[in-house]
């Protein structure tokens, strides 16, 4: 398994209209009896992407992955990999491999034999199998454990074996079902970056299913947020975090404060929004789809809110006054729950850049929260 010398792919292939997608999902629906697990989804994934399917449990992300692997036949729709229709192909004839959440390592075979299993099925010459197994063992840093049986390995080592077993087949697409869920926190963070490095080295297209938004944000080139069997939003981690389109995404990824209001006035480069929960009006950036008189949801992330005990000088817009209801010291940052006069609770957070011995605020302190118009997002639904 040789690392690629140069990267033939560009970093954002989905923006190129002429680029051919590597994996195409066209209107796929999967029903189990009356229950629709995946509801008419379409998706295009490009070569060498690290694509995350993100969603809560029961959102259909794992079912979609199993449809891609061939364990489930879609009720409707088609799947194309590299231009070939694979919808009806059984798992053992598909150019994809899967890393299972439970790893599914064969307990009666040594690490070596587990990894060689897929290559033996291709009836490759023995010498080639041996060299490919050795290479992949080195890649995942498991060479010293080649002769071990699975039950003699730790969770992290088993995870590497599962990854190596799928990688050694050099699949067109590698499917990973919650690849890091079974690892403890420190190992998980370490492995995340290792997974990214391996993907970068080999240039294989990865599709990762996860319920962990942090994991999705760290790993992926693009994320598809799923809910009730459908894609809510597809975009880069930055797009999804900074410019969520819907309230579901905004709430699912990180935390966010949402103000409901009515557009009072359209200005040249901004809109003024009247909100019942705040004393002053909210200012948002100009958006061609918004007009005066419409009701909108204005959202702001907690870390983009400035918390101060003194009233800011410019307090015409985007400034609210409230009482500290709760605060938490998390080490790297402090979080505040501030209750406005209207009773609405606003979350704010601030990094602790300097070492503190004493908290700057206390319960029931009156504080002022303010933010920049450019940092707000308008949500459509």
């Amino acid at each position: 398994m040789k690392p690629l010398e140069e990267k033939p792919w560009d970093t954002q292939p989905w923006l190129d209209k002429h680029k051919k997608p590597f994996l195409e999902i066209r209107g796929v629906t999967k029903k189990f009896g009356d229950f629709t697990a995946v509801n008419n989804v379409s998706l295009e994934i490009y070569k060498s992407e690290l694509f995350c399917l993100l969603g809560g449990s029961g959102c259909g992300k794992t079912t979609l992955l199993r449809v891609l692997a061939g364990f489930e036949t879609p009720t409707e729709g088609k799947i194309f990999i590299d231009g070939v229709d694979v919808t009806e192909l059984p798992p053992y004839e598909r150019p994809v491999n899967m890393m299972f959440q439970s790893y599914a390592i064969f307990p009666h075979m040594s690490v070596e034999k587990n990894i060689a299993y897929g290559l033996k099925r291709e009836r490759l010459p023995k010498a080639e199998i041996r060299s490919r197994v050795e290479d992949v063992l080195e890649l995942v840093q498991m060479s010293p454990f080649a002769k071990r049986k699975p039950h003699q390995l730790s969770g992290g080592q088993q995870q590497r074996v599962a990854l190596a077993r799928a990688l050694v087949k050099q699949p067109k697409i590698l499917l990973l079902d919650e690849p890091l869920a079974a690892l403890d926190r420190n190992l998980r963070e370490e492995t995340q970056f290792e997974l990214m490095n391996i993907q970068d080295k080999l240039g294989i297209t990865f599709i990762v299913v996860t319920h962990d938004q942090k994991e999705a944000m760290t790993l992926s080139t693009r994320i598809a947020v799923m809910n009730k069997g459908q894609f809510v939003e597809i975009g880069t981690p930055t797009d999804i975090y900074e410019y969520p389109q819907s309230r579901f995404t905004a709430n699912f990824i990180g935390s966010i404060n949402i103000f409901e209001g009515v557009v009072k006035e359209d200005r040249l480069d901004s809109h003024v929004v009247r909100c019942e929960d705040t004393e002053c009006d909210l200012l948002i950036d100009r958006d061609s789809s918004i007009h005066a008189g419409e009701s909108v949801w204005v959202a702001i992330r907690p870390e983009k809110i400035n918390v101060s005990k003194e009233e800011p000088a410019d307090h015409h817009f985007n400034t609210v006054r409230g009482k500290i209801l709760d605060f938490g010291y998390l080490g790297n940052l402090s979080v505040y729950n501030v209750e406005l006069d209207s009773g609405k609770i606003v979350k704010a957070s601030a990094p602790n850049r300097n070492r503190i011995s004493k908290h700057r605020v206390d319960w029931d302190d009156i504080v002022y929260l303010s933010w920049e118009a450019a940092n707000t997002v308008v949500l459509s639904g």
Partner: protein
Amino acid sequence: MNVNSVKLNDQTIAIEENRVPPTEKPVVRSGKLRHLLNAFEARTWRNIVIGIPYIWMLLLFFLPFLYVFKISLAESIMARPPFSTLFTWVGDAQVSINLVFDNYLLLLQDALYTTAYLNSLKIAFVATLICLIIGYIMAYGIARAQPTMRNILLLLVILPFWTSFLLRVYAWMGLLANHGIINNLLLAIGLIDKPIQMMYTNFAMYVVFVYSFLPFMILPLYANLEKLDATLDEASADLGAKPVTTFLTITLPLSVPGIIAGCMLVFIPAVGEFVIPTLVGGPDSLMIGRMLFDEFFANRDWPVASAVAVVLLILLVFPFMLYKHFSAKQEERSP
């Protein structure tokens, strides 16, 4: 879900991970003596619970077996009980021990016994093999059935146990007889013009053997197959194995413990089986269980009958010990 609460959760998890896991607490009693008492009690109870079945085995299996072994070394005499005594007092403070090995020699010399032993092993082996093939398919089917169906299917496997074994053998006699149900049916639809001789043939014996012992094969196999992780099959398919290959390389090797358990449970009682060969077997299918019965009750030759029993036990225990020995060695090699 939001960033803050996730952070909070992570912190609490981190704290919990650092904590020492709670050790099992004994019943709270103060003082060192109480502590010792608790430990003693726990050990005593454990010993009692383990000990009861062993005492049972000792009293009802091992001691009677020693007695049978003693009889096998005696001489057949016209008396009650019909065998000579092992120890006789001769004069003062002298014991004469009278060991007779004739019975064992007879088993070796008389071709009848050797044939019966070999025949029993052969019939039991073939019956076990047929049970394994049918039982494996059934157990696999049940293990892969819908969870709600599994219990019903298992119940159907066990259901015949609710009637007497003897009754079921008689029922088969009714089915297989020359004027039995099967022959009558075939005659009625005109497939045959005279009854097929099924009773008192090896065929009838195998049918009844397989029928009677099949549940003993299915149950341990089912218990084994049901535990197998279905995602292993999926992983195998994902790596390019066709279903047949998956079965041969994954399912079959992982079900070896079930296969061995099932085969033991069928083979061992089948070798010594008495009822089936007596009731449905032919004259040429002489089995050791029947010989044993004849020696005891027809010939009243207890010493020979005992020798037959002892040799049978050795024949059955020996392969079992061998298997245990090798499986233990294998475990040593891959700790």
